[in-house]
């Protein structure tokens, strides 16, 4: 499958091999890493959760969209799910193509669309002991601190 989940470390060497094509002059990859801060908070770890059945469909549609829009050879996205520590690899996108331009463009397109469209959620745990679901807490109608 061209979009998939893994519950353990992403094997980037194996993923890269899936992109090999004798007509390709190169490949571009993007790695999303767990960083130690977000919006002023010190992050200690993350949890990723997905509605896998729909996420696999939507992720597959994104890859298909990319292959239609850009003249590339292969494209693949692997997203990790579960509990991740600082520096861990959360998502990997790779694209091979005849020339580099379309590989960069397709890779950027895929990671941007995955972030916006695929039902995956990220919970950040902070040094303060607090935690929060990214994009869900600050936009909530009633802030948590206002609740009894």
């Amino acid at each position: 499958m061209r979009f998939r989940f893994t519950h353990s470390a992403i094997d980037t060497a194996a993923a890269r091999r899936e992109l090999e094509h004798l007509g390709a002059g190169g490949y571009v990859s993007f790695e999303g890493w767990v960083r130690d801060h977000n919006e002023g908070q010190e992050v200690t770890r993350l949890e990723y959760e997905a509605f896998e059945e729909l996420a696999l469909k939507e992720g597959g549609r994104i890859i298909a969209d990319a292959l239609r829009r850009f003249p590339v050879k292969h494209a693949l996205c692997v997203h990790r799910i579960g509990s991740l520590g600082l520096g861990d690899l959360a998502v990997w996108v790779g694209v091979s193509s005849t020339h580099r331009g379309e590989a960069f463009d397709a890779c950027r397109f895929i990671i941007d669309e995955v972030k916006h469209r695929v039902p995956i959620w990220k919970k950040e745990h902070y040094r303060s002991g607090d935690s929060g679901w990214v994009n869900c807490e600050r936009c909530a109608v009633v802030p948590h601190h206002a609740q009894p």
Partner: protein
Amino acid sequence: MKLNIQYYALMREQAGRSQETLETSAATPADLYGELASRYPFTLSREQLKVAVNSEFSDWSRKLESGDAVVFIPPVAGG
């Protein structure tokens, strides 16, 4: 009719469960969300959510049928 509802992420925590089977007269996902929002302390408004029926994105006005699986989708944050 009976519906199967699955909860994810913030909504799973707020509902205190990851799924349930519910006997309801809600005709649409919009009605269903209104019913559930009166039972659970959901902080997200319907405008902030998407909805899936039987593992595919759906309109809020789709007519629900007995046995449908409904998932409310909070703002996503992959990557």
